[in-house]
């Protein structure tokens, strides 16, 4: 006899500490007590998000979502809802009680990721079954190229690769110059490179056909017959699936000559990049496709008028393209209803770092950081305090707790000294040293600088060296001035976005965490205990029970002490590896 109801109790990290285990046991007891254990299954689940409102209980098949459930609430759920058939309104999220099945407790709206995890990416018929190629058919048979562009204009879609340039404008520029030359190219920029961002890979792996369809639509709108997908060779699975998808699309007459007997020809080739970050910059990407060294070229001329092999070229990022078939199909107005005034639609973010539910999330523009990090992401694991979130990768900056309620859009993030970038969100907690994190980003930019222009090539390295000095306790107050001085020519006189944006992590952290820099410089102290040179490990004699674990684990034999007596670390000899700290079960090793 199958169960009639399932009662899911969230037991993610946060809920665990929020007494969800107690609720689980209470519900278990109640099913026995009410003699319904054959009809109702009580299930522990992974994190549901919304951890700040835990413990959370969800009742199936009604999909009712209860928050802040206590023992009394558990009894109410059992008696009023499961046995009585009436939902417990007071435990449901405010204002949304009547919306069922609730789609509001979950903040995600999936447009770009609509097929990821739903269809088999290796089977074109499944894509077609989910409205695939309906947009292309519509464009080819019912719309003029200008109408397609108009629809994009109405949608307000902006480039998801970082800069947020209106997609329709790129298409329009190219559309308008095209009759002056014979060829036009559509390029899909799949050279995803921000550390911690992987939405493009995920889309290409989970829904490759959507990119092919969007490129064909772009080709139709801009008068192009040839597209290139520039993808990094480090994405072998995505490349394999793209090739399969292209083969299948050709078989179905959706790619190649005379698409759907419409007379429109469009084909696509794949170009592999060697993984240089700068090749995500569109002029460097063009150079790389042309077989040149991947170095940025001055703009103007912009690729829309003079791009690949000197021809007008539309370059769109993967996530941007993934949304386009849906926009054409449902109309630009539909898309424009989602999001904020200047940033329409949804954006995919890759949540990583000190976050319970790391992963890809797609939310409407205007969702707050708090909703993403705490409601969807489940907050910071281990009960640690949120410190900041880094957005925009090596070109972005940090956003602190006081700005968590800012609705995310392109302009707001820039105003906070960060940027949208490709959508990486790296969450930091109290254990992260801001100088150290900044150094990490700068190291990335310095390493990925192509070396062409002096401000980026030299400025980045100098900044890195200064940060390195500071983390080693050798910084001076003058160094802060030097950081700021170096940033100006980098921002103003670097040739491409990489160099122009490379100082952003430094300026942003100086803006919000200057005190932490000063602690490193003036007090020779790393408040987060990360910068090894500034950290001292000591053993608190009151807590040490003399178990000898630390002295046995110490790789440099610096810890001495008799069994069952407090141990001591020889500071001269200590290499600050932290093994004693991690190994002590009694919290006796302390960081200062």
């Amino acid at each position, binding site marked *: 006899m199958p169960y009639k109801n399932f009662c899911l109790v969230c037991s993610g990290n946060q809920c665990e500490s929020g007494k969800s285990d107690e609720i689980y046991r209470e519900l278990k007891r109640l099913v026995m007590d009410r003699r319904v254990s054959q009809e109702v299954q009580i299930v522990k689940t992974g994190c549901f998000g919304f951890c700040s409102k835990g413990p959370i209980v969800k009742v199936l098949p009604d999909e009712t979502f209860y928050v802040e459930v206590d023992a009394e609430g558990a009894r109410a759920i059992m008696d009023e809802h499961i046995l009585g058939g009436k939902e417990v309104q007071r435990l449901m999220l405010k204002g949304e009680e009547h919306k069922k099945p609730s789609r509001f407790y979950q903040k995600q709206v999936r447009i770009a990721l609509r097929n990821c995890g739903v269809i088999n990416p290796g089977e074109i018929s499944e894509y077609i079954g989910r409205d695939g190629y309906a947009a292309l058919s519509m464009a080819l048979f019912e719309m003029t190229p200008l109408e397609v562009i108009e629809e994009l204009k109405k949608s307000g879609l902006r480039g998801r690769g970082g800069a947020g340039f209106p997609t329709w404008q790129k298409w329009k520029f190219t559309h308008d110059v095209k009759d002056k030359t014979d060829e036009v190219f559509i390029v899909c920029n799949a050279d995803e490179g921000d550390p911690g961002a992987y939405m493009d890979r995920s889309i290409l792996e989970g829904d490759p056909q959507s990119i092919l369809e969007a490129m064909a639509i772009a080709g139709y709108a801009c008068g192009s017959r040839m597209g290139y997908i520039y993808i990094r060779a480090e994405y072998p699975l995505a490349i394999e699936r793209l090739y399969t998808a292209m083969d299948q699309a050709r078989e179905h007459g959706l790619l190649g000559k005379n698409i759907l007997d419409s007379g429109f020809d469009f084909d696509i080739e794949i170009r592999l990049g060697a993984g240089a970050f700068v090749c995500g910059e569109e002029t460097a990407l063009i150079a790389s496709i042309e077989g040149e060294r991947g170095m940025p070229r*001055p703009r103007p001329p912009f690729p829309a008028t003079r791009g690949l092999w000197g021809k007008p070229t539309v370059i769109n990022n993967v996530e941007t393209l993934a949304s386009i078939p849906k926009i054409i199909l449902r109309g630009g107005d539909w898309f424009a209803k989602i999001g904020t005034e200047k940033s329409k639609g949804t954006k995919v973010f890759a949540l990583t770092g000190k976050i319970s539910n790391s992963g890809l999330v797609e939310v409407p523009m205007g969702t707050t950081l708090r909703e993403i990090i705490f409601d969807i992401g489940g907050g910071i694991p281990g009960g640690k305090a949120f410190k900041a979130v880094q957005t925009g990768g090596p070109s972005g900056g940090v956003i602190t707790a006081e700005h968590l309620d800012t609705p995310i859009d392109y302009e707001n993030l820039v105003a906070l000294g960060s940027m949208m970038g490709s959508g990486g969100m790296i969450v930091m907690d109290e254990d992260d040293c801001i100088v150290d994190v900044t150094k990490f980003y700068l190291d990335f930019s310095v390493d990925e600088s*192509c*070396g*062409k222009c*002096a401000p980026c090539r*030299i400025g980045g390295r100098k900044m890195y*060296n*200064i940060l390195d000095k500071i983390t080693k306790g050798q910084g001076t107050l003058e160094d802060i001035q030097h950081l700021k001085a170096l940033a100006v020519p980098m921002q103003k*006189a*670097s040739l491409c976005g990489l160099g122009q944006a490379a100082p952003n992590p430094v300026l942003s952290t100086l803006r919000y965490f200057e005190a932490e820099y000063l602690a490193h410089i003036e007090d020779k102290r790393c408040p987060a205990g990360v910068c090894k040179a500034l950290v001292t490990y000591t053993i608190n004699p009151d807590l040490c029970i003399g178990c000898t674990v630390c002295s046995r684990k110490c790789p440099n034999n610096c810890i001495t002490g008799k069994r069952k007596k407090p141990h001591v670390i020889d500071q001269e000899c200590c290499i600050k590896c932290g093994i004693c700290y991690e190994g002590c079960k009694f919290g006796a090793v302390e960081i200062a």
Partner: protein
Amino acid sequence: MQKIQIKINNIPMEVAPGISVLAAARQAGIHIPTLCAHPDLTPWGACGLCVVKVEGMPKLPRACVTEVSANASYITHDPELNKIRRTIVEMILSNHPNDCLTCGRSGSCELQTLAANFSIREVPFQSNVPELPKDESTLSIVLDPRKCIKCGRCVLVCQELQDVWALEFIGRGDHTEMMPAGGALLSESPCIKCGQCSAHCPVGAIYERDDTKKLLDAILNPELHVAVQIAPAVRVAIGEAFGLPPGTITTGKIYGALRRLGVNAIFDTNFSADLTIMEEGTEFIERLTQNGILPLITSCCPSWVDYMEKYCADMIPHFSTAKSPMMMQGALTKTYYAEKKGIPREKIFSAAIMPCTSKKFEIVRDKDMYASGQQDVDLVLTTRELARLIKQSGIDFLALPDDESADSPIGAYTGAGTIFGATGGVMEAALRTGYFLVTGEEYEKITFEEVRGMEGIRTASLSIKGKELRVAIAHGIANVRDLLNEIRTAREEGKEPPYHFVEVMACRGGCIAGGGQPYNTTDAVRNARIAGMYADDAKSEIRCSHQNPFIEEVYREFLEKPGSHKAHVLLHTHYHPRPLYTR
């Protein structure tokens, strides 16, 4: 074309459309600093110094790569821009050894000038100069990567102007280096030693190998009879090192300076340029009249020879076997001159002053360069080196008389020998004599304006007694490829060759803009030097090689006749295919 209105620093002006903001500013008498842009090269915006403000534009575009647009208003200098530029110079200096006192470019260094102009008294940022070894593998040029500021000019010159691709950007970020691919040394790379990289380098990262001490040592050695020849192009350029305008003829002063340095005999490569015309001209007439392989291609330029052996060995049969004038002069110095003077040839130290870094390599290029039994030319100094030698010897170059002359018998020359230094000059000299060699009569005119000029490829057609003679001239190796392909296509299709005679010089403008000439060579400078050459030619009493009485004498007394066995042994050479990379 319709001019457009722009404003620079709020001053309205009219400029031609399509020029860069940098060029427009220069026209307005405003100098925007640059370290990477160079008039010879496609601007590519590396250094970042030339950023300017444009009204209504949030970003600062680079003046070198930004075309002027109608009605735009540009600000090229203000305190903010100055500060940005100053910080960039400071950044560059912080990655630079800053050992100006011992640097070959001290005094002519573009970075040094900027540092001085920006009043930089100390570099605020931590110095970070990588310990990289010099590449001294060639006899011609030295790469010092520690001093490299990564402006990219050398790479662009090597790839864009010269089509050699010996230099490449290797590594990225602050590990970027300009060097041959695959970690090869320059000597193991396709490098043709033209030295254009050194002529375009803004700092002391690429420079000619300095051999001045060797000449002084030879002069100091009482055992040695030091004979020095000077190349055609030296005389129109060395004056620049002493403040004279480009193109000023200083032949007499150079002779005088060398005499004051203590040189025993002074010859002129112009003489052997005349000799080259006799040998090459005879070879050409032979081929033309006896169905030989045509076109005949000139071989005076050692960089071109090196390029041909590496990149287009299929052209070897087309190459004139005549040695370059310098090598002919060297061979004669150690044979004819030595015998005439009764000096054992091993006691003669034969040196050459050349506009060219490749000549340093040419003297040991092949075993044929030892035709006298000795090394025919022992030492080559570039124009730049001679200028330094003159300065260090306390000689007031400007005060030297202009009327000193070279020594006999291999010093006197004709106007045809002089113009060898300019693109088209060898062709013109050959045409002046060629007609005579074919017909036994003098041609009605001396000058051939149609082969002069600065076009990358020039072609002309003239009639010799009813027979059409087609000639082509290319300079700057990047211009050669199309010409060669045209010849190849005709060859493959069994058609008549498109040309009978082809002149190639590796450097843009010819030897007058060689890799060893004074710095800051631009097309304006090239044109002035070329004009100087033609002016000297026009003044010459004798303007055709075959009329040079000393040429007549040397054949009579020594070489018998053009193309004789003796001439072949001493004045001709062989070519061999060579690999691009020897590593």
